[in-house]
C-alpha cells in the first residue's frame, strides 16, 4: 500500500514553518552583520579619537624627538595587562635618553604588532588580529609632525583594543536578537496552527457528517457549509440520494419480480395439480411462459436504468438519434418510412448514453410501427435556470392513427404496471416511463399537430 499522503494541516504547517525559518534566519543574519559593522565602526572612531588625544597631549622636542604624553586619554593605557594599548614608532625622547619606539604602560611586556610604519596622513584599521595573547583591533595612524625651521618628524601611532570587548557586546546583542526572533517564530506558528485548524474545520465537519451517513446515523449531509463547500456538499447529497434511490429501485425490482412471477407460477401449478393435460396444458404453460418473459424483460430493463444525472457528461442528441434511426430504417426497410429530424444544436442529454439510446429506441420504434409514411423527431434545449443545467424536450411524432385522448391514461397506467402482456405500445413505453422516473422527467401523449398521428413529448428537467 502506498504511504498515506500528509494531511493538509501538516503540509501547511511544514510549508509555513520552512518559510518562517528562512525568513527569520535571513533577518537574523542580516541584523547580525549590520550590528557588527556598527560596532566595529564605533570602535574605529574611538581608537581614532585616542590617537588624536595622544597627539594633542604630546609634543616634539627641539632635538626632533617625540615626547610621550604625561597623562593618558584613558586610564586603561596605564594599567599593565589591561585591554587598551598604545605605541609609537619613530624617534622618541624618553626620560632615560632616546629610543626608536615607545609603548604605553599597559603595552609593556605584551606581544603587539606595533612595529610597522604607516605613511604620513594614512590611518589603517585592522582586526581582529593576533596580539596581547589574544585578538585585538588596531588603528595605525601615520603622522608627519611639523617642527619649525626643520624637516618634519615622521611617526606612526598605534592604538589597539582587546577584541573581547567588542565580542562581548556582540554576544549580548546576538542573544537578544535570536531570543526575540525565536519567540516571534513560535508565536507566528501557533497563530498559523490556530487559523489553519479554524479554516479546515468545515472540511472535518463534512468528513464527520459523511461518516455519520455511512454509519446510518444520518440520511444526508445536513448543516450549513461555507460557500466553497456548499456545491460539493449538495452534489454529494444528490449522489447519496441517487445511490439510495438506486438501491431502493433494486429492492423494489427484486420484490416486484418475485411477486409478479408468483402468479404465472401459481397458474401453472394449479393446471398441473388439477390434472389438465394435452393441448390445454401446453397452451396454458406457453401463455404463462410468455407472461413470465414479459415480466423478466420489463424488470430487467427497469433495474438496468441508471438515472445518474449529477455527474453525467452532456451527450449530444443528433448522433445517437441518427444511429437509432439508421437501425430502424434497416429493420423496417419494407415500410419505406421517412424519418425527419429537427434537432436543436444546443440540446443535450445529461445521463448515461445507454439510457438515451433506450429512450430514443423505444419511442422511435413505436413510431415506426404505427406510422404510415413519416416520423418526426424534435429535440429542444429548455432554458436553464441560474447555474443549473439546461433541460431537454424530446418529441416523437408520427402520421399513424394516433391515440384517442380517453385511452392515453389507460395506456400510461398499463405501461407503468408493465406486468401484463400489452399490444402495440407495450413494454417499450413502460421502459421509457421507468427511465423518465429515474431522470425525474415527464411524458405527455397527445395528437401531433404536424403529422396528425401520435405525439410523445418528453421533458427532462433542468439540473
Amino acid at each position: 500500500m502506498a504511504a498515506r499522503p500528509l494531511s493538509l494541516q501538516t503540509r501547511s504547517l511544514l510549508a509555513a514553518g520552512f518559510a518562517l525559518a528562512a525568513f527569520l534566519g535571513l533577518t537574523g543574519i542580516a541584523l547580525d552583520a549590520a550590528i557588527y559593522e556598527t560596532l566595529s565602526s564605533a570602535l574605529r572612531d574611538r581608537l581614532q579619537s585616542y590617537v588624536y588625544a595622544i597627539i594633542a597631549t604630546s609634543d616634539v622636542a627641539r632635538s626632533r624627538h617625540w615626547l610621550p604624553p604625561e597623562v593618558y586619554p584613558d586610564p586603561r593605557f596605564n594599567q599593565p595587562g589591561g585591554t587598551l594599548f598604545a605605541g609609537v614608532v619613530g624617534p622618541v625622547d624618553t626620560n632615560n635618553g632616546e629610543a626608536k619606539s615607545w609603548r604605553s604602560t599597559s603595552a609593556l611586556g605584551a606581544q603587539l604588532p606595533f612595529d610597522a610604519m604607516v605613511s604620513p596622513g594614512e590611518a589603517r584599521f585592522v582586526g581582529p588580529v593576533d596580539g596581547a595573547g589574544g585578538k585585538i583591533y588596531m588603528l595605525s595612524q601615520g603622522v608627519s609632525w611639523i617642527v619649525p625651521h626643520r624637516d618634519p618628524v615622521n611617526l606612526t601611532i598605534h592604538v589597539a583594543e582587546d577584541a573581547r570587548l567588542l565580542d562581548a557586546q556582540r554576544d549580548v546583542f546576538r542573544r537578544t536578537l535570536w531570543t526575540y526572533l525565536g519567540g516571534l517564530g513560535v508565536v507566528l506558528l501557533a497563530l498559523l496552527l490556530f487559523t489553519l485548524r479554524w479554516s479546515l474545520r468545515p472540511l472535518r465537519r463534512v468528513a464527520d457528517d459523511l461518516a455519520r451517513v455511512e454509519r446510518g446515523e444520518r440520511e444526508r449531509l445536513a448543516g450549513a457549509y461555507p460557500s466553497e463547500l456548499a456545491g460539493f456538499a449538495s452534489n454529494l447529497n444528490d449522489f447519496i440520494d441517487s445511490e439510495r434511490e438506486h438501491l431502493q429501485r433494486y429492492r423494489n425490482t427484486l420484490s416486484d419480480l418475485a411477486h409478479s412471477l408468483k402468479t404465472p407460477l401459481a397458474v401453472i401449478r394449479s393446471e398441473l395439480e388439477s390434472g389438465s393435460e394435452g393441448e390445454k396444458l401446453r397452451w396454458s404453460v406457453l401463455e404463462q411462459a410468455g407472461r413470465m418473459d414479459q415480466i423478466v424483460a420489463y424488470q430487467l430493463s427497469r433495474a438496468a436504468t441508471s438515472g445518474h444525472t449529477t455527474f453525467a457528461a452532456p451527450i449530444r442528441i443528433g448522433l445517437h438519434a441518427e444511429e437509432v434511426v439508421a437501425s430502424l430504417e434497416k429493420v423496417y426497410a419494407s415500410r419505406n418510412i421517412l424519418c425527419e429530424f429537427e434537432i436543436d444544436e444546443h440540446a443535450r442529454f445529461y445521463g448515461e448514453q445507454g439510457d438515451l439510446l433506450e429512450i430514443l429506441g423505444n419511442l422511435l420504434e413505436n413510431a415506426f410501427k404505427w406510422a404510415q409514411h413519416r416520423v418526426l423527431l424534435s429535440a429542444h434545449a429548455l432554458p436553464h435556470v441560474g447555474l443549473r443545467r439546461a433541460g431537454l424536450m424530446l418529441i416523437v411524432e408520427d402520421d399513424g392513427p394516433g391515440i384517442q385522448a380517453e385511452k392515453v391514461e389507460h395506456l400510461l397506467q398499463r405501461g407503468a404496471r408493465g406486468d401484463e402482456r400489452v399490444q402495440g405500445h407495450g413494454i417499450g413505453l413502460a421502459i421509457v416511463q421507468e427511465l423518465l422516473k429515474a431522470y425525474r422527467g415527464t411524458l405527455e401523449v397527445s395528437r401531433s399537430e404536424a403529422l396528425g398521428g401520435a405525439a410523445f413529448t418528453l421533458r427532462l428537467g433542468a439540473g
Partner: protein
Amino acid sequence: MRVLLVEDEAPLRETLAARLKRDGFAVDTAVDGEEGLYLGREVPFDVAIIDLGLPKMSGMELIAELRAAGQRCPILILTARGSWQDKVQGLKQGADDYLVKPFHVEELLARLNALVRRASGWTTPTLECGPIVLDTTAQIVTVNDQPADLTSYEYKVLEYLMLHAGELVSKADLTEHIYQQDFDRDSNVLEVFIGRLRRKLDPENTLKPIETVRGRGYRFAIPRNESSADAPPPAQG
C-alpha cells in the same frame, strides 16, 4: 433457402434447426464464432442467424468479420439483453434485423422470410409474376387465382426461382440453397422437381414460366409485376 445458424446453446440450436428444416430451410449450424466464420466464408448462404453472446468470438465480431470477408447475405441477430445499445451496435456492424430472446419461432420465420425477400429486391410478402402468385407467409401458390398443389420441396424450388426472377440460377446454386450439405448432388431429382413444377403451374404449356438454359441452369422467365402500392403494416405487438 440456405441458412447459417450460429448459437452456442445446444437445446435452442437443435430445436431451431429442426424447426427450420421442417419449414424447408437448408440449415448449417455452428456452435461458436470461429466455426460460424469458417462456414460463413465457405458457403453461399441466403440468410444467417447469429447469437450475440458466443464463445471464442463474439457475435458482433463475427458479423464484422463476415461482412469484411464479403458475405452479403442478410443477418438476423439474437440477443438476450435486448438493450438498444446492443441493437444499434449490431445493426451498425452489418446486421439487418434483431430478435430479443426468448422469441416465438413463427416470428423468427417471418423475419427470415422478410429478410430473404428484401435481399432479392421484393418489398411485399407476396411474389407476383404474371398470373403466378406466391404468398411467402402462407406458403401458398396460385395460378390465375387457382391454388396449385405443391409439395414442400417443389414450393422451395419455385420460391428460390421466383425470388431471383429474371436471373440465371445454376443447378449448383439451386442445390446448395435448397438441400442439406449431405445431399447427393449428382442425382437428377432437381430435374424431376422442375418437370413436375412446370406441369403443375402450366398444364397447358402456354405460360412457360421456367426456362432451361442449356448446360447452365434455369431462369424464371415471367417478369415481376409492379409491386402493390403499400404493404400493410405488420402485426402490432
